[in-house]
Protein backbone atom coordinates (compact mmCIF):
# COMPACT_ATOMS: atom_id res chain seq x y z
CA UNK A 1 0.00 0.00 0.00
CA UNK A 2 1.23 3.45 -0.90
CA UNK A 3 1.51 5.13 2.49
CA UNK A 4 0.20 8.64 2.94
CA UNK A 5 2.51 11.06 4.73
CA UNK A 6 3.74 14.62 4.50
CA UNK A 7 6.69 13.29 2.51
CA UNK A 8 4.50 11.44 0.01
CA UNK A 9 2.32 14.52 -0.48
CA UNK A 10 5.44 16.64 -1.05
CA UNK A 11 6.85 14.07 -3.45
CA UNK A 12 3.64 13.93 -5.48
CA UNK A 13 3.34 17.72 -5.43
CA UNK A 14 6.57 17.86 -7.45
CA UNK A 15 4.87 15.95 -10.26
CA UNK A 16 1.60 17.84 -10.00
CA UNK A 17 -0.24 15.03 -8.15
CA UNK A 18 -0.64 13.14 -11.43
CA UNK A 19 0.88 9.85 -10.30
CA UNK A 20 -1.05 8.82 -7.19
CA UNK A 21 -1.72 5.08 -7.43
CA UNK A 22 -5.24 3.68 -7.54
CA UNK A 23 -6.62 3.00 -4.06
CA UNK A 24 -7.82 -0.51 -4.87
CA UNK A 25 -7.76 -3.01 -7.71
CA UNK A 26 -10.75 -3.88 -9.88
CA UNK A 27 -10.47 -7.68 -9.99
CA UNK A 28 -12.77 -10.13 -11.75
CA UNK A 29 -14.34 -12.54 -9.26
CA UNK A 30 -12.53 -15.84 -8.70
CA UNK A 31 -14.48 -19.09 -8.65
CA UNK A 32 -13.95 -19.68 -4.92
CA UNK A 33 -13.47 -17.60 -1.78
CA UNK A 34 -13.11 -18.55 1.87
CA UNK A 35 -15.58 -15.79 2.79
CA UNK A 36 -17.94 -13.76 0.63
CA UNK A 37 -19.20 -10.48 2.06
CA UNK A 38 -22.31 -9.16 0.33
CA UNK A 39 -22.47 -5.37 0.45
CA UNK A 40 -19.59 -2.97 -0.18
CA UNK A 41 -20.57 -0.33 2.34
CA UNK A 42 -18.84 0.57 5.57
CA UNK A 43 -19.86 -2.58 7.44
CA UNK A 44 -18.95 -4.96 4.60
CA UNK A 45 -15.59 -3.33 3.90
CA UNK A 46 -14.68 -3.07 7.58
CA UNK A 47 -15.56 -6.75 8.04
CA UNK A 48 -13.32 -7.73 5.12
CA UNK A 49 -10.50 -5.59 6.52
CA UNK A 50 -10.68 -7.12 10.00
CA UNK A 51 -11.03 -10.65 8.57
CA UNK A 52 -7.74 -10.15 6.79
CA UNK A 53 -5.96 -8.22 9.51
CA UNK A 54 -7.17 -9.87 12.72
CA UNK A 55 -7.86 -13.41 11.51
CA UNK A 56 -5.50 -13.84 8.55
CA UNK A 57 -8.41 -14.73 6.25
CA UNK A 58 -7.39 -12.85 3.09
CA UNK A 59 -9.17 -14.92 0.44
CA UNK A 60 -12.24 -12.72 0.82
CA UNK A 61 -14.52 -11.09 -1.74
CA UNK A 62 -16.70 -8.06 -1.10
CA UNK A 63 -19.55 -8.00 -3.62
CA UNK A 64 -21.22 -4.66 -4.23
CA UNK A 65 -24.15 -4.35 -6.60
CA UNK A 66 -23.58 -0.64 -7.21
CA UNK A 67 -20.55 1.39 -6.34
CA UNK A 68 -18.48 1.24 -3.20
CA UNK A 69 -20.02 3.15 -0.30
CA UNK A 70 -22.93 4.26 -2.49
CA UNK A 71 -25.68 3.06 -0.17
CA UNK A 72 -26.34 4.28 3.35
CA UNK A 73 -22.60 4.70 4.02
CA UNK A 74 -22.55 7.64 1.62
CA UNK A 75 -26.01 8.93 2.50
CA UNK A 76 -26.00 9.33 6.28
CA UNK A 77 -25.32 12.51 8.24
CA UNK A 78 -22.02 11.11 9.53
CA UNK A 79 -22.76 11.44 13.25
CA UNK A 80 -20.73 9.32 15.67
CA UNK A 81 -21.76 8.92 19.33
CA UNK A 82 -22.15 6.17 21.91
CA UNK A 83 -24.79 7.75 24.17
CA UNK A 84 -27.12 4.75 24.20
CA UNK A 85 -29.06 3.27 27.10
CA UNK A 86 -28.70 -0.49 27.55
CA UNK A 87 -25.33 -1.88 28.70
CA UNK A 88 -25.06 -4.19 25.67
CA UNK A 89 -25.54 -1.19 23.40
CA UNK A 90 -23.26 1.27 25.18
CA UNK A 91 -20.44 -1.30 25.34
CA UNK A 92 -20.75 -1.93 21.63
CA UNK A 93 -21.14 1.67 20.42
CA UNK A 94 -18.40 2.92 22.72
CA UNK A 95 -15.98 0.36 21.29
CA UNK A 96 -16.95 1.76 17.91
CA UNK A 97 -16.29 5.32 19.01
CA UNK A 98 -12.90 4.32 20.44
CA UNK A 99 -11.99 2.59 17.17
CA UNK A 100 -13.04 5.74 15.29
CA UNK A 101 -10.67 7.76 17.47
CA UNK A 102 -7.72 5.80 16.11
CA UNK A 103 -9.05 4.99 12.67
CA UNK A 104 -7.19 7.62 10.63
CA UNK A 105 -3.88 6.22 11.94
CA UNK A 106 -5.01 2.60 11.69
CA UNK A 107 -6.01 2.94 8.04
CA UNK A 108 -3.38 5.56 7.15
CA UNK A 109 -6.28 7.50 5.70
CA UNK A 110 -7.74 10.72 7.05
CA UNK A 111 -11.39 10.13 7.96
CA UNK A 112 -11.64 13.69 9.33
CA UNK A 113 -13.09 12.60 12.67
CA UNK A 114 -14.07 15.77 14.48
CA UNK A 115 -15.06 15.25 18.12
CA UNK A 116 -17.03 18.43 18.51
CA UNK A 117 -19.61 17.03 20.92
CA UNK A 118 -23.13 15.73 20.38
CA UNK A 119 -25.85 17.69 22.19
CA UNK A 120 -29.32 16.30 22.82
CA UNK A 121 -32.04 18.75 23.65
CA UNK A 122 -35.22 18.18 25.67
CA UNK A 123 -38.48 19.91 24.84
CA UNK A 124 -40.54 18.41 27.64
CA UNK A 125 -40.06 17.37 31.24
CA UNK A 126 -40.56 13.75 30.18
CA UNK A 127 -37.71 14.05 27.69
CA UNK A 128 -35.51 15.68 30.30
CA UNK A 129 -36.23 12.84 32.71
CA UNK A 130 -35.37 10.30 30.01
CA UNK A 131 -32.11 12.15 29.38
CA UNK A 132 -31.25 12.07 33.06
CA UNK A 133 -31.87 8.33 32.99
CA UNK A 134 -29.61 7.93 29.95
CA UNK A 135 -26.83 10.11 31.38
CA UNK A 136 -26.91 8.12 34.62
CA UNK A 137 -26.76 4.86 32.66
CA UNK A 138 -23.86 6.18 30.58
CA UNK A 139 -21.87 7.41 33.55
CA UNK A 140 -22.48 4.08 35.24
CA UNK A 141 -21.05 2.37 32.15
CA UNK A 142 -17.98 4.60 32.35
CA UNK A 143 -18.93 6.70 29.34
CA UNK A 144 -18.61 10.44 29.65
CA UNK A 145 -21.91 12.34 29.36
CA UNK A 146 -23.29 15.28 31.29
CA UNK A 147 -26.56 17.14 31.66
CA UNK A 148 -26.76 20.70 30.34
CA UNK A 149 -28.81 23.58 31.68
CA UNK A 150 -30.59 25.97 29.35
CA UNK A 151 -27.79 28.51 29.92
CA UNK A 152 -25.18 25.94 28.97
CA UNK A 153 -27.15 25.02 25.85
CA UNK A 154 -27.32 28.69 24.85
CA UNK A 155 -23.59 29.07 25.50
CA UNK A 156 -22.85 26.12 23.18
CA UNK A 157 -25.36 27.27 20.55
CA UNK A 158 -25.78 31.04 20.69
CA UNK A 159 -28.30 31.00 17.83
CA UNK A 160 -30.61 28.56 19.61
CA UNK A 161 -34.08 29.88 20.41
CA UNK A 162 -35.16 28.27 23.65
CA UNK A 163 -38.86 29.17 23.53
CA UNK A 164 -40.51 29.41 20.15
CA UNK A 165 -43.81 31.02 19.12
CA UNK A 166 -45.05 27.53 18.24
CA UNK A 167 -45.25 26.97 21.98
CA UNK A 168 -42.22 24.74 22.24
CA UNK A 169 -40.04 25.21 25.28
CA UNK A 170 -36.55 23.98 26.04
CA UNK A 171 -35.99 22.27 29.36
CA UNK A 172 -32.33 21.32 29.11
CA UNK A 173 -30.22 18.71 27.45
CA UNK A 174 -27.10 16.60 27.64
CA UNK A 175 -23.82 16.34 25.83
CA UNK A 176 -21.39 13.60 24.93
CA UNK A 177 -18.22 15.54 24.23
CA UNK A 178 -16.40 12.67 22.53
CA UNK A 179 -19.13 12.43 19.91
CA UNK A 180 -18.85 14.18 16.59
CA UNK A 181 -18.76 13.62 12.86
CA UNK A 182 -16.43 12.00 10.33
CA UNK A 183 -16.26 12.04 6.56
CA UNK A 184 -18.40 9.05 5.67
CA UNK A 185 -16.95 8.40 2.20
CA UNK A 186 -13.45 8.43 3.67
CA UNK A 187 -14.44 5.68 6.10
CA UNK A 188 -15.55 3.44 3.21
CA UNK A 189 -12.55 4.36 1.05
CA UNK A 190 -10.08 3.96 3.90
CA UNK A 191 -11.35 0.49 4.78
CA UNK A 192 -11.49 -0.49 1.09
CA UNK A 193 -7.93 0.67 0.47
CA UNK A 194 -6.59 -1.11 3.55
CA UNK A 195 -8.56 -4.31 2.83
CA UNK A 196 -7.42 -4.35 -0.79
CA UNK A 197 -3.80 -4.02 0.34
CA UNK A 198 -4.27 -7.16 2.46
CA UNK A 199 -5.51 -9.11 -0.57
CA UNK A 200 -9.30 -8.71 -0.32
CA UNK A 201 -11.06 -8.59 -3.70
CA UNK A 202 -13.53 -5.72 -3.91
CA UNK A 203 -15.90 -6.39 -6.77
CA UNK A 204 -18.25 -3.59 -7.73
CA UNK A 205 -21.24 -3.83 -10.10
CA UNK A 206 -21.72 -7.39 -8.93
CA UNK A 207 -25.23 -8.10 -7.71
CA UNK A 208 -26.05 -11.24 -5.76
CA UNK A 209 -29.01 -12.90 -7.46
CA UNK A 210 -29.28 -16.10 -5.46
CA UNK A 211 -27.62 -18.62 -3.19
CA UNK A 212 -26.66 -22.27 -3.62
CA UNK A 213 -27.56 -24.41 -0.64
CA UNK A 214 -26.97 -28.04 0.17
CA UNK A 215 -28.52 -29.70 3.24
CA UNK A 216 -29.31 -26.36 4.84
CA UNK A 217 -25.78 -25.07 4.34
CA UNK A 218 -24.68 -22.38 1.95
CA UNK A 219 -22.23 -23.60 -0.69
CA UNK A 220 -22.10 -20.67 -3.07
CA UNK A 221 -23.60 -17.43 -4.31
CA UNK A 222 -24.99 -16.64 -7.74
CA UNK A 223 -24.05 -13.20 -8.97
CA UNK A 224 -24.46 -11.05 -12.04
CA UNK A 225 -20.80 -11.91 -12.75
CA UNK A 226 -21.17 -15.67 -12.40
CA UNK A 227 -21.21 -18.24 -9.61
CA UNK A 228 -18.83 -18.11 -6.67
CA UNK A 229 -18.24 -21.11 -4.40
CA UNK A 230 -17.93 -20.38 -0.70
CA UNK A 231 -18.97 -21.89 2.61
CA UNK A 232 -19.24 -18.64 4.55
CA UNK A 233 -21.34 -15.64 3.53
CA UNK A 234 -21.71 -12.41 5.49
CA UNK A 235 -24.70 -10.25 4.59
CA UNK A 236 -24.17 -6.51 5.16
CA UNK A 237 -26.75 -5.02 2.84
CA UNK A 238 -28.81 -2.79 5.16
CA UNK A 239 -32.19 -1.98 3.60
CA UNK A 240 -31.96 -4.88 1.15
CA UNK A 241 -31.50 -7.58 3.80
CA UNK A 242 -35.11 -8.77 3.57
CA UNK A 243 -34.73 -9.41 -0.17
CA UNK A 244 -31.67 -11.62 0.33
CA UNK A 245 -33.33 -13.34 3.28
CA UNK A 246 -36.29 -14.18 1.02
CA UNK A 247 -33.84 -15.74 -1.48
CA UNK A 248 -32.39 -17.79 1.38
CA UNK A 249 -35.84 -18.86 2.56
CA UNK A 250 -36.31 -17.02 5.86
CA UNK A 251 -37.87 -13.78 7.04
CA UNK A 252 -36.44 -10.92 9.08
CA UNK A 253 -38.12 -8.48 11.48
CA UNK A 254 -37.00 -5.62 9.25
CA UNK A 255 -38.94 -2.83 7.61
CA UNK A 256 -37.07 -0.82 4.99
CA UNK A 257 -37.77 2.89 5.25
CA UNK A 258 -36.51 5.98 3.44
CA UNK A 259 -34.36 8.21 5.64
CA UNK A 260 -33.65 11.64 4.23
CA UNK A 261 -30.80 14.06 4.63
CA UNK A 262 -30.10 17.44 3.10
CA UNK A 263 -27.42 20.14 3.05
CA UNK A 264 -27.62 23.90 2.88
CA UNK A 265 -25.39 26.34 1.07
CA UNK A 266 -22.10 26.92 2.93
CA UNK A 267 -21.94 29.71 5.50
CA UNK A 268 -19.39 30.90 8.04
CA UNK A 269 -19.10 28.87 11.26
CA UNK A 270 -22.36 29.16 13.20
CA UNK A 271 -22.78 25.79 14.90
CA UNK A 272 -19.81 23.91 16.32
CA UNK A 273 -21.60 21.02 17.99
CA UNK A 274 -23.84 18.31 16.59
CA UNK A 275 -27.41 18.94 17.69
CA UNK A 276 -29.61 15.88 18.09
CA UNK A 277 -33.25 16.46 18.88
CA UNK A 278 -36.40 16.25 16.82
CA UNK A 279 -33.97 16.77 13.94
CA UNK A 280 -30.20 16.44 13.87
CA UNK A 281 -28.04 19.16 12.42
CA UNK A 282 -24.33 19.87 12.24
CA UNK A 283 -22.13 22.15 10.21
CA UNK A 284 -19.66 20.49 7.87
CA UNK A 285 -16.07 21.61 7.45
CA UNK A 286 -17.14 23.30 4.21
CA UNK A 287 -19.73 25.31 6.13
CA UNK A 288 -22.86 23.53 4.92
CA UNK A 289 -25.54 22.68 7.44
CA UNK A 290 -26.13 18.93 7.29
CA UNK A 291 -29.69 18.14 8.34
CA UNK A 292 -31.63 14.96 8.96
CA UNK A 293 -34.75 13.88 10.77
CA UNK A 294 -36.88 10.79 11.14
CA UNK A 295 -37.66 8.31 8.43
CA UNK A 296 -40.49 8.78 5.98
CA UNK A 297 -43.70 7.31 7.30
CA UNK A 298 -44.11 4.22 5.10
CA UNK A 299 -41.74 1.50 3.88
CA UNK A 300 -39.83 2.30 0.73
CA UNK A 301 -36.91 1.11 -1.39
CA UNK A 302 -36.97 4.28 -3.48
CA UNK A 303 -33.74 5.90 -2.17
CA UNK A 304 -35.41 9.24 -2.59
CA UNK A 305 -37.12 11.37 -0.02
CA UNK A 306 -40.59 12.71 0.30
CA UNK A 307 -41.77 16.30 0.58
CA UNK A 308 -43.72 16.06 3.89
CA UNK A 309 -40.58 15.01 5.77
CA UNK A 310 -38.54 17.80 4.13
CA UNK A 311 -41.13 20.35 5.25
CA UNK A 312 -41.16 18.84 8.72
CA UNK A 313 -37.36 18.94 9.03
CA UNK A 314 -37.25 22.52 7.80
CA UNK A 315 -39.93 23.74 10.20
CA UNK A 316 -38.17 22.01 13.10
CA UNK A 317 -34.85 23.60 12.12
CA UNK A 318 -36.35 27.09 11.91
CA UNK A 319 -38.22 26.61 15.14
CA UNK A 320 -34.86 26.00 16.85
CA UNK A 321 -32.76 28.41 14.79
CA UNK A 322 -34.83 31.22 13.26
CA UNK A 323 -31.57 32.78 12.00
CA UNK A 324 -31.33 30.04 9.35
CA UNK A 325 -34.56 31.11 7.64
CA UNK A 326 -32.86 32.62 4.61
CA UNK A 327 -30.46 29.76 3.98
CA UNK A 328 -30.87 27.96 0.67
CA UNK A 329 -30.76 24.19 0.67
CA UNK A 330 -28.68 22.69 -2.11
CA UNK A 331 -29.14 18.95 -2.08
CA UNK A 332 -31.51 16.41 -0.62
CA UNK A 333 -31.35 12.63 -0.85
CA UNK A 334 -32.42 9.46 0.97
CA UNK A 335 -31.13 6.04 1.91
CA UNK A 336 -33.04 2.81 2.47
CA UNK A 337 -32.65 2.02 6.17
CA UNK A 338 -33.39 -1.35 7.74
CA UNK A 339 -35.42 -0.58 10.86
CA UNK A 340 -36.09 -3.21 13.52
CA UNK A 341 -38.85 -3.35 16.16
CA UNK A 342 -36.46 -2.48 19.01
CA UNK A 343 -34.09 -0.14 17.14
CA UNK A 344 -31.15 -2.47 17.76
CA UNK A 345 -29.17 -4.31 15.09
CA UNK A 346 -29.38 -7.98 14.12
CA UNK A 347 -25.98 -9.70 14.06
CA UNK A 348 -24.76 -13.26 14.13
CA UNK A 349 -26.16 -16.57 12.89
CA UNK A 350 -28.96 -16.80 10.35
CA UNK A 351 -31.27 -19.82 9.97
CA UNK A 352 -29.02 -21.00 7.10
CA UNK A 353 -25.72 -22.59 8.16
CA UNK A 354 -22.77 -20.54 6.96
CA UNK A 355 -24.77 -17.36 6.40
CA UNK A 356 -24.17 -14.59 8.92
CA UNK A 357 -26.28 -11.48 9.42
CA UNK A 358 -25.15 -7.91 9.89
CA UNK A 359 -28.29 -5.83 9.44
CA UNK A 360 -31.05 -3.96 11.21
CA UNK A 361 -28.87 -0.88 11.55
CA UNK A 362 -31.78 1.42 10.86
CA UNK A 363 -30.80 5.02 11.46
CA UNK A 364 -27.60 4.28 13.43
CA UNK A 365 -25.34 2.19 11.18
CA UNK A 366 -22.57 4.64 10.36
CA UNK A 367 -21.39 5.14 13.94
CA UNK A 368 -21.27 1.35 14.31
CA UNK A 369 -19.01 0.61 11.34
CA UNK A 370 -15.66 -0.12 13.08
CA UNK A 371 -17.14 -2.20 15.92
CA UNK A 372 -19.61 -3.83 13.53
CA UNK A 373 -16.80 -4.85 11.21
CA UNK A 374 -14.53 -6.04 14.02
CA UNK A 375 -17.15 -8.18 15.78
CA UNK A 376 -18.70 -9.46 12.54
CA UNK A 377 -15.30 -10.57 11.24
CA UNK A 378 -14.69 -12.37 14.53
CA UNK A 379 -18.12 -14.01 14.29
CA UNK A 380 -17.51 -15.27 10.75
CA UNK A 381 -13.95 -16.39 11.46
CA UNK A 382 -14.89 -18.40 14.55
CA UNK A 383 -18.39 -19.52 13.59
CA UNK A 384 -19.94 -18.16 16.79
CA UNK A 385 -21.20 -14.72 17.81
CA UNK A 386 -18.61 -12.35 19.24
CA UNK A 387 -19.44 -11.80 22.96
CA UNK A 388 -20.23 -8.12 22.33
CA UNK A 389 -22.93 -8.92 19.78
CA UNK A 390 -24.40 -12.06 21.34
CA UNK A 391 -27.45 -10.10 22.52
CA UNK A 392 -28.07 -8.74 19.01
CA UNK A 393 -28.96 -12.19 17.62
CA UNK A 394 -31.98 -12.86 15.44
CA UNK A 395 -33.02 -15.32 18.16
CA UNK A 396 -34.09 -12.43 20.42
CA UNK A 397 -37.27 -12.04 18.38
CA UNK A 398 -38.22 -15.55 19.46
CA UNK A 399 -36.99 -15.37 23.06
CA UNK A 400 -38.39 -11.87 23.58
CA UNK A 401 -35.09 -10.44 24.88
CA UNK A 402 -35.45 -7.21 22.93
CA UNK A 403 -33.02 -4.34 23.44
CA UNK A 404 -35.14 -1.22 23.26
CA UNK A 405 -33.11 1.71 21.96
CA UNK A 406 -36.04 3.63 20.50
CA UNK A 407 -35.11 6.70 22.51
CA UNK A 408 -31.34 6.59 21.91
CA UNK A 409 -31.68 5.90 18.20
CA UNK A 410 -34.03 8.85 17.91
CA UNK A 411 -36.82 6.76 16.42
CA UNK A 412 -39.28 7.51 19.24
CA UNK A 413 -39.41 11.30 19.35
CA UNK A 414 -38.94 11.70 15.61
CA UNK A 415 -41.81 9.37 14.81
CA UNK A 416 -44.06 11.10 17.31
CA UNK A 417 -43.86 14.28 15.24
CA UNK A 418 -45.80 13.05 12.26
Amino acid sequence: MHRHSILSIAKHALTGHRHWPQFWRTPAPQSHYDVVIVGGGGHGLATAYYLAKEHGICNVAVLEKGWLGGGNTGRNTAIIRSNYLNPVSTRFYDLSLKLYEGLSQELNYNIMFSQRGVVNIAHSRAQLRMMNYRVNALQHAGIEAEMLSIEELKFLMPLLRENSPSGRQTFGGFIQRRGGTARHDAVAWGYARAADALGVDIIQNCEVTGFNQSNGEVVGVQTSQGEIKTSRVGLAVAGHSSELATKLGFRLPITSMALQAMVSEPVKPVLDVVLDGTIYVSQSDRGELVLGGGTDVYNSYAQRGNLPRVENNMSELLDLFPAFSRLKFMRQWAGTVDTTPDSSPIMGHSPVEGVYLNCGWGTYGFKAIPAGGLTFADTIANGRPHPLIDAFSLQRFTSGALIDEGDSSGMDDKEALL
Partner: protein
Amino acid sequence: MIQIDCPLCGLRDESEFTWGGEAHICRPENPDTVGDEEWGSYLFMRQNPRGNHRERWCHSYGCNQWFNLIRDTVSHKITSIYPIDQLAPESGDDNE
Protein backbone atom coordinates in the same frame (compact mmCIF):
# COMPACT_ATOMS: atom_id res chain seq x y z
CA MET B 1 -45.39 12.86 -1.96
CA ILE B 2 -48.02 10.31 -2.81
CA GLN B 3 -51.74 10.87 -3.04
CA ILE B 4 -54.18 8.27 -1.79
CA ASP B 5 -57.72 7.80 -3.02
CA CYS B 6 -59.56 7.35 0.26
CA PRO B 7 -62.61 5.11 -0.33
CA LEU B 8 -64.80 7.62 1.53
CA CYS B 9 -63.20 11.03 0.96
CA GLY B 10 -61.50 10.77 -2.42
CA LEU B 11 -57.99 11.79 -3.46
CA ARG B 12 -55.95 13.35 -0.63
CA ASP B 13 -52.27 14.00 0.15
CA GLU B 14 -50.32 11.39 2.12
CA SER B 15 -49.84 13.79 5.03
CA GLU B 16 -53.53 13.26 5.94
CA PHE B 17 -52.96 9.52 6.38
CA THR B 18 -51.27 7.19 8.84
CA TRP B 19 -49.43 4.13 7.59
CA GLY B 20 -50.35 0.98 9.45
CA GLY B 21 -47.78 -1.48 8.15
CA GLU B 22 -48.27 -4.86 6.51
CA ALA B 23 -51.86 -6.01 6.07
CA HIS B 24 -53.37 -9.48 6.54
CA ILE B 25 -51.19 -10.50 9.49
CA CYS B 26 -53.22 -13.15 11.30
CA ARG B 27 -53.06 -13.45 15.06
CA PRO B 28 -52.62 -17.13 15.91
CA GLU B 29 -56.03 -18.63 16.68
CA ASN B 30 -55.02 -19.98 20.05
CA PRO B 31 -52.17 -17.97 21.62
CA ASP B 32 -51.95 -20.31 24.60
CA THR B 33 -50.85 -23.20 22.44
CA VAL B 34 -48.46 -21.60 19.93
CA GLY B 35 -44.72 -21.85 20.47
CA ASP B 36 -42.29 -18.96 20.86
CA GLU B 37 -41.20 -19.24 17.24
CA GLU B 38 -44.68 -18.84 15.82
CA TRP B 39 -45.59 -16.08 18.26
CA GLY B 40 -42.35 -14.20 17.50
CA SER B 41 -43.02 -14.59 13.82
CA TYR B 42 -46.52 -13.16 14.25
CA LEU B 43 -45.25 -10.20 16.27
CA PHE B 44 -42.10 -9.26 14.41
CA MET B 45 -41.41 -10.98 11.07
CA ARG B 46 -42.46 -8.97 8.03
CA GLN B 47 -42.57 -9.45 4.26
CA ASN B 48 -40.86 -6.12 3.52
CA PRO B 49 -40.87 -6.74 -0.27
CA ARG B 50 -39.15 -4.68 -2.90
CA GLY B 51 -42.22 -4.37 -5.11
CA ASN B 52 -45.90 -4.68 -4.38
CA HIS B 53 -46.75 -4.44 -0.70
CA ARG B 54 -50.19 -5.01 0.83
CA GLU B 55 -50.58 -2.55 3.66
CA ARG B 56 -53.03 -0.80 5.95
CA TRP B 57 -53.67 2.94 5.98
CA CYS B 58 -55.89 5.17 8.09
CA HIS B 59 -57.28 8.49 6.91
CA SER B 60 -56.42 10.09 10.28
CA TYR B 61 -57.13 13.69 9.33
CA GLY B 62 -60.26 12.88 7.34
CA CYS B 63 -62.84 10.16 7.89
CA ASN B 64 -60.56 8.27 10.32
CA GLN B 65 -61.35 4.97 8.58
CA TRP B 66 -58.90 2.13 8.02
CA PHE B 67 -58.53 0.48 4.62
CA ASN B 68 -56.04 -1.67 2.70
CA LEU B 69 -54.10 -0.96 -0.43
CA ILE B 70 -51.38 -2.42 -2.63
CA ARG B 71 -48.44 -0.09 -3.21
CA ASP B 72 -45.14 -0.55 -5.02
CA THR B 73 -42.33 0.14 -2.53
CA VAL B 74 -39.99 1.43 -5.25
CA SER B 75 -42.24 3.64 -7.38
CA HIS B 76 -44.83 4.20 -4.59
CA LYS B 77 -47.53 3.63 -7.23
CA ILE B 78 -50.81 2.40 -5.73
CA THR B 79 -52.47 -0.29 -7.83
CA SER B 80 -55.42 -1.33 -5.70
CA ILE B 81 -57.42 0.01 -2.76
CA TYR B 82 -59.85 -2.30 -0.95
CA PRO B 83 -61.80 -2.49 2.32
CA ILE B 84 -60.07 -3.49 5.54
CA ASP B 85 -62.18 -6.66 5.91
CA GLN B 86 -61.51 -8.04 2.44
CA LEU B 87 -58.94 -10.58 1.35
CA ALA B 88 -56.22 -9.21 -0.89
CA PRO B 89 -57.02 -9.16 -4.59
CA GLU B 90 -54.58 -11.04 -6.83
CA SER B 91 -51.68 -8.64 -7.09
CA GLY B 92 -49.56 -10.63 -9.52
CA ASP B 93 -46.21 -9.78 -8.02
CA ASP B 94 -46.15 -9.82 -4.26
CA ASN B 95 -42.74 -11.42 -3.75
CA GLU B 96 -44.07 -14.33 -1.76
